[in-house]
Every structure is written in C-alpha cells, then in structure tokens.
C-alpha cells in the first residue's frame, strides 16, 4: 500500500532541477502579447476624463482597452456580479483596474500603463470599520446573527465577567508565484487558458462569460501554483479574462502576470476584523454566556465575503462548549481591496475571538488560562452512536450564479437538518460535537512538552528578570471540515489504465504545494495494488473533469481522494469480473496487490492482467464521483450540520519580549496535530509546520497599513514582514496525533490544509502572557502583535486601560 507512507512531493525532482513549470514558464509562441492594467489612484471617485493617447503612443503598445471595448460581460466577480474587469466610470479602491494595456513585452505594457492622464472627481471614501459602520455600508441587508440558549439566564449565573475588544489585522497571501494567466486562441473561437488558479471551473465560467460563449468553448488547465493559500480562489479571474479577451480580439496568445507590487495593490487579502466581546463564567469556571460582535472589513466588492464571515461565526466557539451565546456579524463594505479567501476562510478570526476571551477571563480570575480552557472543552467524542446518513435535498440556485463558487447563493429549500445524537454537546449552530479529542490531545501535549515545569520556569524567569519577560500559551484548534455551501462538497475524477499497465490519473483538485497530487496518487496506487511509479499525475483540466469545486476549505484530498478511489474501483471491478470468468473464479475473491491480480490460485502480473483485459474488450477507463454524506446547512438560520467532521490540534508556544522595545521572538513551539490516519505523514507534517509559521506571521509581524487616502502603504516585502528563516523558533517539535477519523473519509484521514494555520494563535496568546507579566492589568494586546502593539500592551498592563 502506498497510502500512509511519508513519500516526498511528487514533483520534488522537477523543483530541485528547475524543470517544474509554472504558468509563466510555459513556452509561448513568438507573437504572444503581454498585458498590464492601468489602475485607480483614488479610493472613491468618478472618472471625468480618460486620456490614453500617451499610453497608445508608448513603444511596444499594440492596443489599449477600456470597459467599452470588451466583447461581452465585464465582470470578474465570483458572486454578486459587482466586480467589473475594467472600471465603468466609477472607481472604488486605489489599485482598481481602469484600462488594459496590450504590448509586445511585459515591461512595455507596465511602463505604458503609467502614462495615462485620468481626471477624477473625488468622492468621500469609507476606509475603516468605523467609517463603514457610521455610514451603514454593508453587504447583505443587515448583520447576521446566530444565537443559542438563554443569555439572560446565563448572565444571571455569571460569577466573573469580562468585556473588551480586539483588533485583528488582515494578511497578504504572498504566494511566492504571483498571479498569472496565459490564453491561447483556438479555431472556431475556442479558448485554452492556463491560469494559476485554485478554481479552474470558476476561471472557465468567467472566461466564457467574458467572451460570450458557452463553457464548452473554454478549456482551463493548471499543473501547479507557486502557492495559493486562498489567494488564487477568485483573484485570478481578472487576469484570465483579460488574456482571453485580448486573445479573442487580436487572434494572438496573451499573457499576464502581476508584478509583486501590482499583485499586492490589486488583489484581495485576508479580512481584517474587530471583535467586541462580553463573556462570563460561573463560580466553577464554566462558560455560561458569551456575546460577540464581529465587524468584518470586506472591501469594495462582495467576492467571497459572506461565506468567510459565516465561517468566522462558525468558529467563534473553537473547542469550547458555550451554553448561551450570541454571535453577530457585520459585513462591511469599504473602499479598499476586496478581501478574499485566505487559509482558514474567516475561521482563524472567529477563533482568535474566543481565545482572547479565555485569556481575558483567566486574567480576571487570576488562574492559568490553560486550566480555564481545559474546563470548557467540548466533551470527548467516541461515546455517541453513529449517526444515520441522511439524504440531503440538493439546493438549487439561479442560472446567473456561478454555481461552483463559494460566493454562490443557495436559493433552494434549506437542506434538511440532521438529527443530533442523544446526549451530545452541540455547537452554537446546533451541530453535535461527537469527535472531540481536545482533552486527550492537550493532555498529551502538556505531558510531552512539560507544560507544568515550563510554566513554573517562566514564572521564575519573570520574577528574576525586569527587562526580558517570557510568556507561554497553549491553545487548541477545532476546525470544521466541508464547504459550508453544501453542494460544493462534490468531486470528480478520471482514471485511465493503458494497455501497458500504466495509469493516468486526473481529478478536479489543484496542486499548490500542499502535496494533494501525491496523496491522491498514493490512493490510486493503493487501490490497484501497484507501485506508485505506475501512476502518472496530470494537470488539472476542465476538459477532463468538469464542474469542479475550488481546491479550498481543506477539502482537496477528502473529496478528490474519494473520487479517484471510486474511479479505480470501477475499473478494478471490470477487470475482476473479466478475469474471474476466464479463470473460473469468484469475482469477489479477486484481489489486487503486490503489482499483480490474484485470481483464485493464479497470480497474474499487473501488466499481463491489463493486457488480457484489453484484449478481452474490457473498458479500462472510468470516471469517479464523490459527494460528502450527512451534511446540511441553513446559513440564514445558522442551523444544521455544515461540517462532516472536525480536525483538532494544539500548540504550546513560548516567547520572550524585550519590554523596553517591544521586540519579541518565539523560543520554542510544540505541536500535536490531528490528521486522522494520515495519508502521508511527511506531507502532513509539512502542512502543520508551514501553517503554524504562516498563522504566527499573521498575528505577529505581518502588518498591512493603509494611509488616510486608502492607499496600501505596505505593498512589497520590504515593508510587509513575512516570517524569514531566522524568525523560526529555535526549538520546534511537531508531531501528528494518531486519530482515525470516525467518519468514513478516504482511509480515515483528515484534512490538513487549513487547521494548522490556527495553531499560530498560541504565539499571540504567549505574547499576551509575557505582556501580562509586566503589570497588574490586562494588556489587551492587538493583532498583529508588532513591537509597537506589544509596547502599547505593556503600557496597559502597567498602568491599566488609560496607560
């Protein structure tokens, strides 16, 4: 079996020799055109005059397009049709594309784009959460609210309460490969598009709209991305549509890549939040009532903001049972980049809210935050009856929608709500938590990393040292796995076995470094009982597997692994039936193992078995399909079972802070993470390590700053500080927690793309702990905990809120 083996990334030999091809590396015909956008200099304005004469006259320029020149739809939105490819007289953020330069080289196009004379009539811009709240500028008609339990009764029971607010900054994806697309015109108006995208079907849909053709006239291919992290779920639409339109109008191939600077100015980032909270515990330290107001800055267009904000609400409990709770979410529209998907998709923001509450409550109670956390974990799973898998009514949406987008609206009947097993604790949205391992996993981590000893050592250190203060925090993660838009939880695969026994595997998932292709290839090899070398991994292609969901929501291996397994099993069944008949055996007894097919007493080598089946006129090609069972969700009511299961983890982080400067660093990190029965432990550990560092970066050094005109001032790595090699903690212990998924996922594994990101919250809480060691008051540390914010928090700890 190849599953569960720590095999290296399938493309490793190509990467280390420079042969791995990304979109910008694909050889292009000599007449290929290069594109660049001219962008808005104002956050909110009408364009009163647009003089492009100098742009057109610039060297190398072939054409300049404005909205009027587009052949069909002018829209690149994944949801509400509110995002024109090129502005139509009005601009809504600094960086918004206004016109498109078509030139003979990348540099010529970019230089010419700077030469336009645009006359603006400026209008007042809404830039901040406060601006938008004051103007009631929002998506959806009003705030969304999920409530559960009797809040008044909860507050009556509360012995200790806290109230506060935390600011949470956004985050730039900084996928190392910037956005890129290449369109190649075909005969009869067809278009082939290579796009660095997590969502080829979305690109196909938007390109078809932009060209005014059906989806079958567009084929999208992507072999790999140089990182995605959610930033390539919808943000590649503009480049792909621009290239396709130019290819259509000129008949020549067209390529576009954003320079890093353009990429950071134009594309969306993680949503920044402010979370106001009020929380109470009873005399035993059990949560009795919690209220959250999540204020979420979505930027100028809707994009995927609604499901992002939903997921923040769905993770406001993290691993804690809260009997009475209100979560209110404001989705605010501002004149800034349209915030988009980013690893965790709102979950991290929601989770920071409750972790902050635990930290604050513990400070108020004068107890170790870990003790308070452990008291409130959901009860351990494993003791509830298996739920019956109920059929879920398919939801239907209008044909206008891109149905495969997470921004689509489910307009059909709400899905049926799945029954809750008797005695199970439920989340604020009514899903039973039957798989919690928070207690066991955290206890094991405490033991492994000597929490008690280190807590005492930190206290000693802080008593003896006035300038350098240490902090320690252990935070858990419980992350829901599935797309919350239920119908997206489906996947397709295409598997061919060729007459020489080689296998060609294709599925709808995309590879962005996470190792999905290797994991799924391991599944295919295991199904057929052949060595992995027999399986060829191929580029994701909308011509092979249609109607795919984005590779997002951590669902890549869960969905595509199952679809590939289904396709393999179909071919195996045909081979087994044929060979059983020939060899007078029972088809049920035929086995596929050891690179052979075992039929009765006969061991037929794989290649021979395949050749026999081919000669016997057996079809050796099959599609596979999978849909996640048992889920259903009504996002308006906030009720149901949106998640198939939860993935768990915990991190213990120790930091040191220089109280004179606020400078700080991580000293040691210990992690235990639940990847179910891992399909590939090496790849999964890589996801955990990388996810933790990225999550810690979000909450510590990565600060996005807009000036008061709405201009993003941190638009290059010189000013936007991503963790570097030297920032990594000197001690970093990462292990997987063996925990077979109780749900029947592929080989009982669990999704691992997003959950570890939220382990980074322990870094923020450890810094809070160090700040708290500086004085008697709660430090109320903001995120990201830059040196400045740490210094402010130390001031508050010493002097109280006014400090």
């Amino acid at each position, binding site marked *: 079996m190849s599953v569960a083996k720590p095999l290296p990334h399938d493309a490793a030999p190509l*990467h280390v020799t420079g042969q791995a091809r*990304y979109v910008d590396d694909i050889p292009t015909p000599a007449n290929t055109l290069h594109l660049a956008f001219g962008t808005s200099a104002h956050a909110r304005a009408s364009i009163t005059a647009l003089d492009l004469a100098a742009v057109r006259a610039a060297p190398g320029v072939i054409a300049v397009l404005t909205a009027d020149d587009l052949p069909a739809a002018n829209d690149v939105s994944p949801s509400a049709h509110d995002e024109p490819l090129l502005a139509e007289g009005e601009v809504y953020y600094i960086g918004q594309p206004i016109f498109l330069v078509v030139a003979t080289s990348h540099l010529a196009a970019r230089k010419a784009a700077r030469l336009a004379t645009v006359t603006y009539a400026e209008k007042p811009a809404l830039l901040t959460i406060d601006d938008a709240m004051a103007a009631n500028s929002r998506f959806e008609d009003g705030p969304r609210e999920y409530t559960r339990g009797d809040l008044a009764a909860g507050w009556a029971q509360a012995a200790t309460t806290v109230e506060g607010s935390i600011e949470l900054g956004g985050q730039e994806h900084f996928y190392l490969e910037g956005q890129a697309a290449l369109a190649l015109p075909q005969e009869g108006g067809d278009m082939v598009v290579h796009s660095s995208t997590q969502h080829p079907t979305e690109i196909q849909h938007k390109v078809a709209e932009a060209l005014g053709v059906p989806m079958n006239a567009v084929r999208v291919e992507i072999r790999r991305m140089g990182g995605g992290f959610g930033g390539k779920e919808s943000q590649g639409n503009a480049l792909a549509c621009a290239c396709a339109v130019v290819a259509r109008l000129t008949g020549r191939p067209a390529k576009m890549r954003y320079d890093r*600077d353009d990429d950071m100015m134009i594309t969306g980032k993680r949503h920044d939040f402010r979370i106001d909270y009020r929380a109470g515990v009873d005399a035993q330290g059990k949560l009795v009532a919690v209220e959250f107001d999540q204020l979420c800055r979505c930027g100028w267009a809707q994009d995927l903001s609604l499901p992002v904000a939903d997921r923040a609400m769905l993770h406001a409990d993290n691993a804690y049972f809260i009997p009475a709770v209100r979560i209110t979410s404001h989705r605010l529209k501002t004149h800034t980049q349209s915030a988009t998907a980013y690893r965790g998709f709102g979950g991290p923001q929601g989770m920071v809210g409750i972790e902050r509450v635990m930290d604050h409550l513990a400070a108020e109670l004068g107890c170790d935050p870990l003790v308070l956390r452990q008291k409130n974990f959901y009860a351990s799973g494993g003791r509830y009856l298996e739920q019956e898998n109920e059929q879920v009514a398919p939801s239907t949406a209008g044909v206008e929608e891109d149905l495969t987008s997470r921004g689509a609206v489910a307009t059909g009947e709400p899905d049926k709500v799945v029954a809750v097993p008797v005695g199970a604790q439920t989340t604020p949205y009514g899903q039973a938590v039957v798989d919690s391992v928070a207690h066991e996993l955290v206890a094991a981590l405490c033991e492994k990393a000597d929490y008690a000893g280190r807590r005492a050592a930190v206290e000693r250190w802080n008593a003896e040292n006035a300038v350098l203060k240490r902090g320690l925090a252990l935070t858990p993660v419980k992350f829901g796995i599935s797309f919350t838009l239920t119908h997206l939880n489906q996947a397709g695969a295409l598997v061919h076995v060729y007459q020489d026994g080689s296998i060609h595997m294709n599925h709808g998932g995309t590879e962005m470094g996470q190792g999905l292709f290797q994991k799924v290839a391991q599944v295919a090899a295991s199904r057929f009982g052949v060595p992995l070398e027999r399986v060829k991994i191929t580029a994701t292609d909308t011509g092979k597997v249609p109607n795919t969901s984005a590779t997002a929501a951590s669902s890549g291996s869960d969905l595509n692994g199952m679809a590939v397994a289904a396709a393999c099993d179909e071919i195996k069944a045909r081979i087994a039936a044929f060979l059983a008949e020939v060899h007078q055996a029972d088809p049920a007894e035929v086995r596929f193992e050891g690179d052979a097919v075992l039929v009765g007493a006969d061991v037929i080598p794989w290649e021979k078995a395949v050749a026999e089946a081919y000669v016997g006129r057996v079809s050796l090609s099959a599609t596979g399909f999978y849909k996640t069972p048992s889920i259903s969700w009504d996002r308006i009511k906030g009720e149901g079972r949106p998640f198939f299961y939860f993935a768990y983890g915990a991190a213990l982080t120790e930091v040191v802070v220089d109280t004179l400067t606020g400078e700080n660093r991580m000293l040691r990190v210990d992690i235990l993470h639940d990847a179910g029965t891992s399909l590939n432990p090496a790849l999964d550990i*890589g996801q955990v390590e990388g996810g933790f560092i990225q999550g810690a970066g979000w909450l510590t050094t990565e600060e996005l700053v807009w000036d008061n005109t709405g201009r993003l001032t941190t638009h290059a790595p010189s000013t936007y500080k991503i963790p570097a090699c030297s920032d990594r903690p000197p*001690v970093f212990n990462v292990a997987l927690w063996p925990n077979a998924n109780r749900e029947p996922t592929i080989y009982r594994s669990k999704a691992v793309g997003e959950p570890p990101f939220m382990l980074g919250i322990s870094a923020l809480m450890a810094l809070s702990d160090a700040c708290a060691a500086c004085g008697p008051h709660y430090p109320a540390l903001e995120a990201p905990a830059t040196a400045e914010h740490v210094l402010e928090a130390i001031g508050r700890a010493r002097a109280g809120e006014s400090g």
Partner: protein
Amino acid sequence: MATVTMTVNGKSRTGEAEGRTLLVSFLREELNLTGTHVGCDTSQCGACVVHVNGEAVKACTMFAQEADGAEVSTIEGQANADGSLNTIQQAFQDHHGLQCGFCTPGMVMSAAALLKDNPKPSEQEIRNYLQGNICRCTGYHNIVKAIMAASGQDVSAVAAE
C-alpha cells in the same frame, strides 16, 4: 540592444539585451532557462538566486550586460553529469524541503553558495544565511534540515528538544 555572451552552466550562450534588461529576464526570456524564478521583482525574496563567477547573486538585482563574459550557473546546471541529483538537490527531496517549489531553485542555489564557503554550517548559520530567501509554504524547518543533511550533519537534532 546589445549582444551579451556569457557561459551559462558550462556552455557559451549569446543573446540580446537592452541596457536595463535584468539578468533574470535574460535567463528566463532570452535563454529560456525558466528554473530561475521571479518572486518579488525587488531583490527581497531570493527566488532568483544564481551564481555569477561563483558568487550567489539575486538575478533581479543585476543587469544582463553586467554579466557579459561571466560564468553563470543556474538551477538547471546543478545536477550531476549523469543527470542524477546532486547532494543538495537530493537532500531537498529526501527531507521534504519544498512544497510549492517556487522558492526551491533559489534555496538550492543559496545553499550551494553557503556550503562552498562553509562546508559544515551550524543550524544558526544556515538560518542567518537564508534570511534573504523567503519561503511562504514550508516554515523553513525542512529546508534547514535539508541543508544540514547535505553538509553531512545529523538532522535529527534540528530544532528539536
């Protein structure tokens, strides 16, 4: 436009370059050596590291004409003569020192430059040396391990306790 000639991975290569053409553009667009990547365009990410006359250089900080007559080596020239992976390349594969792979060519080239000057660097020396190479995926752990392994050192103790 001027004609620029340099020895790239042991072979003499000639192409056209304007005065402001960057070495990285020349390698990628003129010579079709696309293994050298552009991650930031502004000399910060290290995805474009190559060797010029034996020294590690960010190819986006150097003009092609400045490299006229120089010995340049890129990721495409790193494998052994028989096509097998060299020690550093093999270590990056074996120790999972890559995910999306976009930073990998620059990492491998930087690692080679480090090990040339310092054949047995300490973990801390590796960390400091790689400050100019950004990786957004791996969290660096396995990259450091790979370089320790490539220099023949024990990796089991990397950042562990």
